[in-house]
């Protein structure tokens, strides 16, 4: 992914030219504003004109609902408590899974025998969608905290492992040649080449598994929970409150976005040598 971005496609606005109406309306920021305001306006109008009947709430009503939830205790805790309940599950499941999966993936890529033992069993589990585990984890661990963490861990395990495995395998062979020419041993190869070179891939895997983690969390909480953002959505669904459903969706999107931002920031600190497309 180290090819240059087409410099033509990166919007260069040109030198200092005179004012032009056309350039003004095709300015990126102007277009962003137009698009967002149209989006919210359409949402608001569709809700106000009841095109979907009662089942869509106006944006302001949703915000109002969220604000109301911060003030009152809803099902035992206020909004912050619900957000924290979900976030804690994701954090525990995610760190458990990545702590096992990343080293295992590295081992599999570095050692043929580990690979021969683990890979076939892993391939059996790989195509199963993590959400399919929801029922069996409830059967095994009941409806408590652990069954939710289990689903999140299962979901995050696969992309973590796959990416660290592929990250090592796709290291450019020239790099190995360099370290061998410089007189490095197998140990140096692993520490000096494999780990740093596979870092970007590992982080890409963490990024993917984090978004999977939020999806799994939601599935688990929708099935049964007494707190968390999925619970808010489910309660909104059961009691037919679109504002609550939309509020829950917004919250979970916000948290997913924030956590992926956090991973990106950590990645920038830990491996500044990463190249690739930063856009999108």
């Amino acid at each position, binding site marked *: 992914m180290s090819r240059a971005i087409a410099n033509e496609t990166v919007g260069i606005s040109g030198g200092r030219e005179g004012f032009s109406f056309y350039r003004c309306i095709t300015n990126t920021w102007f277009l962003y504003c137009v698009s967002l305001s149209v989006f919210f306006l359409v949402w608001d109008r569709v809700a106000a004109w009841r095109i979907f009947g009662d089942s869509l709430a106006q944006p302001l009503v949703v915000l109002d609902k969220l604000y109301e939830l911060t003030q009152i205790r809803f099902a035992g805790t206020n909004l912050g408590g619900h957000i924290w309940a979900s976030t804690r599950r994701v954090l525990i499941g995610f760190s458990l899974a990545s702590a096992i999966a990343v080293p295992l993936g590295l081992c599999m890529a570095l050692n043929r025998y580990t690979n021969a033992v683990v890979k076939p069993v892993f391939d059996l589990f790989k195509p199963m969608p993590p959400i399919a585990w929801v029922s069996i984890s409830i059967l095994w661990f009941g409806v408590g905290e652990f069954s939710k963490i289990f689903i999140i861990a299962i979901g995050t395990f696969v992309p973590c492992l796959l990416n660290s495995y592929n990250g090592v395998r796709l290291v450019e062979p020239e790099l190995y040649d360099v370290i061998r020419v410089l007189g490095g041993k197998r140990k140096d190869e692993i520490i000096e080449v494999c780990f740093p070179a596979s870092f970007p891939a590992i982080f890409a895997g963490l990024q993917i598994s984090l978004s999977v983690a939020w999806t799994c969390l939601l599935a688990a909480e929708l099935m049964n929970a007494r707190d968390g953002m999925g619970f808010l959505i489910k309660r909104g669904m059961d009691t037919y409150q679109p504002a609550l459903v939309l509020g829950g*969706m917004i919250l979970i999107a916000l948290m997913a976005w924030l956590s992926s931002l956090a991973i990106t920031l950590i990645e920038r600190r830990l491996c500044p040598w990463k190249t690739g497309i930063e856009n999108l």
Partner: protein
Amino acid sequence: MQAYKEVVVKTPLPLRILPYLSVAVFLLIWELAVRTGMIPSVLLAPPSQVFSLFIDKLTQPNPDGAVLAVHAWTSLQEALIGYGLSLLVGIPLGLAMGWFRVVEGLARPIFELIRPIPPIAWIPLTVFWFGIGLAGKVFIIWIAGIVPCVINSYVGVRMTQPTLIQMARTYGANDWQIFCGLCVPSALPMVFGALQIALAYCWTNLVGAELLAANTGLGYLITMGGRLARPDIVVLGMVSVGVSGAVLGFIIDCIEKRLLAGIRR
């Protein structure tokens, strides 16, 4: 006279046996753990029982109301319709976003707003809007599949070699010609990458959609198994979802290989 010698790469014997051995040991441990009562049989069904249930379910609609083929067909239908729609919308949108600045400016903010929402979060709204029929599930799968399509085709266009674009400009090609003749073909490998990713997303979210709101389908089979406390049904459902997902992925892979035969990756 043969001009070349065939190179034989020998894998050591243990490396060839180990994969089969590990799967066999895994299945054996699973079977034994349940048979000997280490794991109670209300929690997990042994592989042999799952297999015999699979044979039964081919003809028996009990206890969840449909034979396996009906469940699989329902799921397949939903997944493929949603998948097709997401390709139809996502790929052109992503390609256009990569090349035309106006399209990017208009579509990007909305896309960025929708993207972080996990697709199954839409379930309640789709149930309100479309009921629990086909349309609601197709909508969720569509939302799930469209994200990787847009991202990959966008990045594919963005990664077009600048030299080629400049050359096309020198020869007097206009914007539209460059887009059709240069950016789209060079984005194709990325677009085909999206086919696989989108399929995986669609398949995952299909199960999610069916767990919550359905009356047939493989996801529904899993839910019913859980509700009836029948671990064999749950495992059978999981296995059939996994196998059919893998088969679909394999088919897409074959199509991809055929279509992209001449393109260097």
